[in-house]
């Protein structure tokens, strides 16, 4: 051992810092093992079984002196334990007077009692208000988990996904049953689809409602890839997902897609702490697409009848255009609680994520200050949360880069004579990277102030005011490049987006307990105003003077005019809500809520919607007949019904008529016949929208039945839920009934149409131990979802535009009765015929291959999502493995359709061997949308794996300064098991039509990285 130490030190002096780190890790790994060696034989640890028995009885009460039935009393160090009865009384036999009793109850701090010579004890447990362990954050309040009647799933900091994380969605992926988180691409901070319990809308409004520390985030566009990137994930203490209508209905007309409640960290009682975490990560492409090498390419082009253009090089364009992204993160936080009156949490974070493409990174600078002050014996309680974030996102030209790296002729050398090779009227991608910039800078402040006052015992008034302010500037430009036609002018696209969202809420809560009965009443009023505006400037024609176009003066010309577009709206929301929670003896629970939600978006005849819900809970384990049951420590049955609304994705003003005066295309005409410039043209008055004063929210009616249990000394716990959710009054930008209408389509609710979702969600966890040193946690969740459209008056609603030459008007998704949202609607490819052309199944048997031969060919949305994990602790080591997967879904590989055809190969463009699968395929065969490009999208991913080591600071002599040091190594996306041939099966980069959502299309998607992260976390 000593020798090793010396070796390490010697090495570290001579060699790099890296070896020092390795040696340090080595030391860390060995020292504690050696340290524990001798203790195993220590006679003190041997329990000598005593024949002496002692009986002790007592009462357990809560902090108000109310008896606590069902509290656990365990003799420390043994498995000997009992529970209190209905009146909080217990009797236990212990070994001797040295015994120590450990008293525990959900939501309370544990207490240890030395028996001594006592025969009876009275224990008052202090409620563990600060602990979030068993408290669930619901809308406008929080509840003990045992009191909850709705389907709410919670995860805490320690359960979050680890690694390089840009936003809360990534923390959640695979963690909660019924919640399907899909990254749309592998770009740092990419957008996500977060779908709770299936898609309930045709339009883009399927994002859940996000509530951060009681502040409702507006789902309008922020002009950034993912608006949630503004939250520093390390500030988050817990995420609660309100899944069923009972839980979500308090959020009314915005809750139909479920609600995600994010709670940030607070100062903890009795603990003052500073925390520093530092990490460095390396990302590489996890899976390249197997296009031909230069050598293969030289053979393949002639083999399909092409004439090889050989430029003599040997280039792997994927390697050339991808890099190892180095990401760094530093986060510092301080928290504490002074005299139990003032608590604080503050943090500063710098996160620099580098993508695997050049020009691709996301930098976040964030600060947070959470304060709580109590006064008047705790009756006045003031919360303040403030976070400020600056996000700088550099985005590459993804589509062009992906196309280039897959299809460029691999015989083209990257450089010729030290300069990027000039490729026949194409832009060398190396040059593109030099001249192209797309930078999005977002500054955002979210602040809320929430004082509450307990006016009389049990009656609390709370005010919540807050503002969320965001400004985003996007500069997308191309420097002038004289070497290629069409690039000489340079271009600039500048977009400035401003969002202000302010909220004011007043609530009154009355908490009343008499005997076994407990009632909590909540009434409230909420007003929220979200304003949005953007300006877009587009200009062309810049000097090639080495100054970026965004910093140049530019004079608009007739040939290259500057354009300016503006857009702005205000959405107002006014709501009245109430909730009653009634509990009887902690056994029978009833929750009823009602929210009246008014929104300025709704038509004049339907300003307010009413969203009721009712839920019942039965804590079976608290029943007398269960008192003898030793298997279940918790058994609860829940049932709920409720209605929620969805107004997301309904644009502003769409219920109002609008006409504009314009000289736009096809709106004006040279009526006099002598006009010579646009100034002479008359304004035309044209309709913009047909009014619909009856336009209203979509209604989602949901039934939920759930069972929570924990058994075998709470080692096994789990939840099973069944839900059935039906969306009606589906909103669509639909073709008008009468073809002669001011506008061909208008916003309307489709009568009778339904989108049905039903499913079962199961989550299980088992925690156990092996010997004294090993504890483990193993569990997982699985959800099945059955989605379908019913009573649609439309034979088919197509979306998911195929793009590219020859694809105008072709679509990929199509939704119809009896089939799920996300359905692929296309022809079925049955092979290549003797003429070398694609053959399709002739569904309408007329001998012709027409668009009426299209049919439902599976769906992009999985019918099953699952995840499982293992957390293992061995002494100071911890290991966590998180897997997640989906099955039953398909992916349309648009990239393959566009790029990997014999036709492309014949034209000296690279492909995979997919292009040469059919030897007799003709060069002119069509790449028509069909099942030929439809692939199984099922996958199983090792989402993240973390190996951690917690170091006792005493060992390295820092005990006086440092409380805790943790070193960790995390791998993200270490492997994916899938049959999918694209970069990654987690993808969604289709383009929608008429606002109808598209799913499962992979078109030139930013590849998914594989990341290795080394982290150090120290607390002081």
């Amino acid at each position, binding site marked *: 051992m000593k020798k090793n130490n010396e070796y390490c030190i010697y090495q570290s002096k001579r060699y790099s810092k890296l070896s020092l780190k390795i040696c340090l890790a080595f030391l860390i790994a060995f020292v504690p093992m050696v340290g524990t060696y001798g203790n195993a034989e220590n006679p003190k640890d041997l329990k000598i079984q005593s024949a002496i028995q002692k009986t002790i009885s007592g009462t357990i009460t809560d902090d108000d002196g109310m008896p606590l039935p069902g509290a656990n009393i365990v003799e420390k160090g043994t498995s000997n334990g009992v529970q209190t009865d209905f009146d909080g009384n217990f009797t236990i036999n212990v070994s001797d007077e040295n015994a120590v009793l450990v008293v525990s109850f959900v939501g309370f701090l544990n207490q240890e009692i030395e028996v001594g010579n006592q025969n009876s004890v009275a224990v008052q447990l202090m409620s563990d208000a600060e602990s979030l362990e068993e408290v669930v954050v619901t809308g406008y309040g929080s509840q003990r988990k045992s009191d909850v009647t709705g389907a709410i799933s919670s995860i805490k900091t320690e359960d979050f996904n680890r690694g390089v994380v840009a936003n809360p969605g990534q923390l959640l992926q695979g963690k909660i049953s019924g919640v399907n988180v899909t990254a749309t691409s592998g770009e740092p901070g990419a957008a996500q689809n977060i779908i709770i319990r299936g898609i309930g809308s045709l339009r883009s409004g399927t994002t859940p409602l996000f509530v951060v520390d009681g502040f409702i985030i507006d789902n309008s566009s922020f002009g950034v890839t993912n608006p949630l990137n503004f939250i520093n994930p390390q500030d988050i203490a817990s995420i609660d997902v309100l899944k069923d209508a009972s839980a979500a209905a308090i959020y009314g007309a915005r809750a139909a897609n479920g609600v995600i409640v994010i709670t940030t960290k607070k100062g903890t009682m009795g603990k003052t702490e500073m925390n520093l975490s530092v990490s460095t990560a390396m990302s590489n492409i996890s899976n390249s697409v197997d296009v031909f090498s230069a050598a293969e390419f030289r053979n393949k082009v002639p083999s399909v009848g092409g004439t090889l253009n050989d430029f003599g090089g040997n280039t792997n364009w994927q390697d050339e255009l991808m890099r190892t992204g180095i990401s760094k993160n530093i986060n510092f936080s301080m928290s504490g609680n002074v005299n139990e009156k003032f608590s604080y949490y503050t943090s500063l974070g710098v996160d620099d994520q580098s993508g695997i493409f050049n020009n691709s990174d996301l930098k976040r600078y964030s600060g947070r200050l959470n304060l709580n002050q109590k006064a008047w014996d705790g009756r006045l309680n003031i919360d303040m949360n403030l976070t400020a974030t600056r996000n700088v996102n550099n985005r590459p030209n993804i589509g062009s880069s992906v196309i280039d790296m897959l299809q460029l002729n691999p015989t083209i050398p990257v450089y010729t004579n030290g300069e990027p090779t*000039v490729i026949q009227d194409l832009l060398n991608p190396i040059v593109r990277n030099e001249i192209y910039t797309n930078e999005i800078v977002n500054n955002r402040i979210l602040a809320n102030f929430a004082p509450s006052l307990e006016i*009389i015992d049990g009656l609390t008034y709370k005010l919540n005011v807050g503002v969320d302010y965001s400004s985003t500037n996007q500069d997308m430009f191309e420097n002038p490049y004289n070497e290629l036609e069409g690039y000489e002018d340079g271009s600039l696209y500048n977009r400035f987006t401003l969002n202000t969202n302010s909220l004011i809420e007043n609530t009154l809560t009355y908490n009343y307990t008499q005997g076994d009965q407990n009632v909590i009443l909540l009434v409230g009023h909420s007003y929220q105003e979200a304003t949005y505006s953007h300006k877009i400037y587009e200009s062309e024609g810049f000097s090639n003077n080495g100054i970026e176009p965004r910093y140049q003066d530019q004079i608009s010309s007739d040939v290259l005019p500057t354009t300016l577009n503006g857009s702005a*709206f205000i959405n107002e929301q006014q709501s009245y809500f109430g909730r009653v929670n009634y509990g009887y003896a902690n056994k029978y629970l009833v929750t009823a809520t009602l929210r009246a939600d008014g929104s300025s978006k709704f038509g004049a005849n339907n300003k307010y919607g009413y969203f009721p819900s009712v839920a019942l809970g039965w804590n079976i384990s608290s029943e007398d007949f269960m008192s003898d049951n030793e298997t279940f420590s918790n058994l609860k049955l829940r049932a709920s019904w409720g209605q929620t609304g969805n107004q997301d994705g309904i644009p502003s003003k769409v219920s109002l008529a609008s006409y504009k005066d314009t000289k736009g295309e096809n709106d004006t005409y040279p009526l006099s016949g002598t006009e010579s410039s646009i100034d002479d043209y008359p304004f035309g008055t044209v309709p913009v929208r047909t009014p619909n004063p009856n336009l209203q929210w979509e209604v989602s009616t949901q039934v939920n039945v759930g069972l929570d249990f924990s058994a075998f000394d709470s080692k096994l716990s789990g939840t099973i839920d069944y839900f059935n959710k039906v969306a009606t009054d589906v909103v669509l930008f639909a073709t008008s009934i009468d073809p002669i209408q*001011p506008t061909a389509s208008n916003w309307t609710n489709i009568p009778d149409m339904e989108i049905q979702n039903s499913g079962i969600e199961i989550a299980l966890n088992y925690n156990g131990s092996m010997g004294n040193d090993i504890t483990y946690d193993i569990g997982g969740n699985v959800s099945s979802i059955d989605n379908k459209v019913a009573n649609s008056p439309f034979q088919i609603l197509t979306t998911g535009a195929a793009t590219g030459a020859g694809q105008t008007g072709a679509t990929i998704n199509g939704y119809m009765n009896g089939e799920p949202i996300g359905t692929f609607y296309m022809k079925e490819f049955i092979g290549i015929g003797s003429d070398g052309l694609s053959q399709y199944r002739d569904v309408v048997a007329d001998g012709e291959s*027409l668009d009426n031969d299209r049919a439902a060919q599976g769906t992009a949305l999985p019918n099953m999502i699952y995840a499982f994990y293992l957390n293992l602790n061995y002494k100071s080591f911890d290991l966590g493995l998180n897997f997640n997967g989906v099955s039953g879904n398909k992916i349309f590989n648009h990239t393959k359709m566009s790029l990997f055809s014999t036709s492309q190969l014949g034209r000296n463009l690279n492909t995979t061997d997919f292009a040469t699968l059919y030897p007799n395929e003709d060069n002119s065969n069509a790449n028509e949308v069909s099942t030929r490009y439809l692939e199984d999208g099922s996958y199983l991913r090792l989402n993240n794996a973390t190996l951690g080591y917690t170091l006792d600071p005493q060992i390295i002599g820092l005990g006086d300064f440092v409380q805790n040091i943790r070193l960790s190594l995390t791998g993200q996306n270490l492997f994916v098991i899938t049959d999918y041939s694209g970069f990654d099966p987690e993808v969604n980069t289709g383009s929608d039509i008429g606002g109808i959502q598209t799913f499962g299309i992979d078109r030139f998607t930013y590849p998914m990285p594989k990341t290795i992260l080394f982290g150090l976390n120290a607390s002081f």
Partner: protein
Amino acid sequence: MKNKIKFIIYALSPLFLLNCTDLEEERLDEAAFGEQAETISGALAPAYGYISWTWRHTNYYGLQLITSDEAILPYRGGTDWYDGGKFMAAHKHTITPSNSLVGAGWDKITTNLSRTLSAIEVLTPLSEAGNAEASGALYEMIALRAYLNMLMLDGWGLVLQKETSGVLSTVLRGQDAIDNIESDLSSVVDKINSNRAPGRISQSAVWGFLARLHLNAAVYRDPYGTPTFTSDDMNKVIEYTSNIISSNKFSISPEYFDLFNDENNSNPELIFALDQRGVLKREHSRWAYWSLAGSWFPRPEHPSADGTDGPAITSDFYQTWVDAYGSTDPAEADARFYQKNTIIPADVLADFEGRSNLLESETENSYYCVEPTEFEIDRGIIRGVLWGPRKGSNGKFDTCDTGVKIMPVKQRKGNGPDRDVGYVNHTRQVDFTNEGSYHNTGYRVAKYQFSRTSPNGNNYSSVDLVLMRLAEIYLMRAEAKLRNGDSGGALTDVNTVRSSRNARPAQTPAALTSLNLESMYRERGFELYWEGFRRTDQIRFGKYEDSWTEKSDSDPNNRLFPIPQKTVDAASGNDGFLEQNQGY
């Protein structure tokens, strides 16, 4: 305690009151009604302005063109113009209700109709109050509504009648539809302006619409049967066309292709044409650029102004020219077929003719030099090897002393054996086979000039889109006379048109010696090719169920297009309101 509660309620009440809102939606970036337009021009401009969009190549124009035998659009090289199969289905007459070409055509006409109705609703009260300008505008809008309804009737066999926007349209078919259109046109024909041509609808245009309506009335009355042309209808055609001819406001253009040039707005032959001045982006030159080769840059001053390798004429349609002129090349026999503009110096031509059509055989004598603005491509039906500027590897035109090099055009598109090694060589055969779909196949139509005001060949065009001209009026009168048994009078009218194309005397079409329905049909094809008449002509002459390249369908139900599925779906809530056309 009670005081405390009171105090708090009072203290908090402003918070409640402050935020009460009626949820009226505020408009920040729009007005309920525009503030800048003048009432009359504001009503008229969008209705007129939209017609060119209705007639866009991928809307109603493409629908009329590709379904006839004068054009075919294959899936070029397996890469271009497939577009969900809409053009191939249109050509094969296997259109389904979800075909997006039909959907686009229908949508544009209905939108245009709605804009016209809006104008009528705005103008009617002004007119009734005695505003003469509003009355004049109103008559034009009523005529435009009738014109658009006639397009609808021609394509879908129905008219959507609607007098006010608040009520559901009435669907009229057959004689009811004809009556509706005729009543609209008759109500304004004697009151409408007689001097605004060609950019606005004038009395002559209304006479022309009435003539078209009566010429086709037999078909419109019974779209699936064998048309019975009544002498009453034919007399009306003769009457209305004679009104135009005898008004002496119009004369036949000696140079046929002047009709389709940048300056055509002042051409005396035009009766109704969409006024384009090169001011608006959507002043389209799509009728010019759609058919031409994607490798061809007809305007060397604009490096991005190329063609698209869109539709070609079918070999069957070409055959009608061959049938008419026998061993004489139609380019020599008929000025309407071709106009030579690219004059290649003799030595360069000799060099070209002495070589294979391959780039590798080129020498320094294989080009000649012109000022970019002086280059003009040939017009009419384009056959064989093209000449034009060529781009180097930097994407810029190869230049020479006095301008750009003009050379045989290198094939840069598709998957054919000529790509990158040979010249674009338009061949007669074009079909849906692999070889027949190559980017070079089929003779192309350069009837419309590549506008000099268009930097990219498709937008900012100054070429007015011709919708009615005097030659058509003569041909309508000839056909009506012929169907009424006056073949002599018919022949005179046809020969008037032919002999008036005398700008290039060598190619002035010779006078016909006799005329029957067959040669009448053929003559309309020569005069009016690719102007949106052929499908209607084929139905009227009983040719629409014939077979031609890649088309063998003979179901009379396909004379009418299907109503778009989404329209039928949307109307399905109102039983019987809008039924799908038979056979779909």
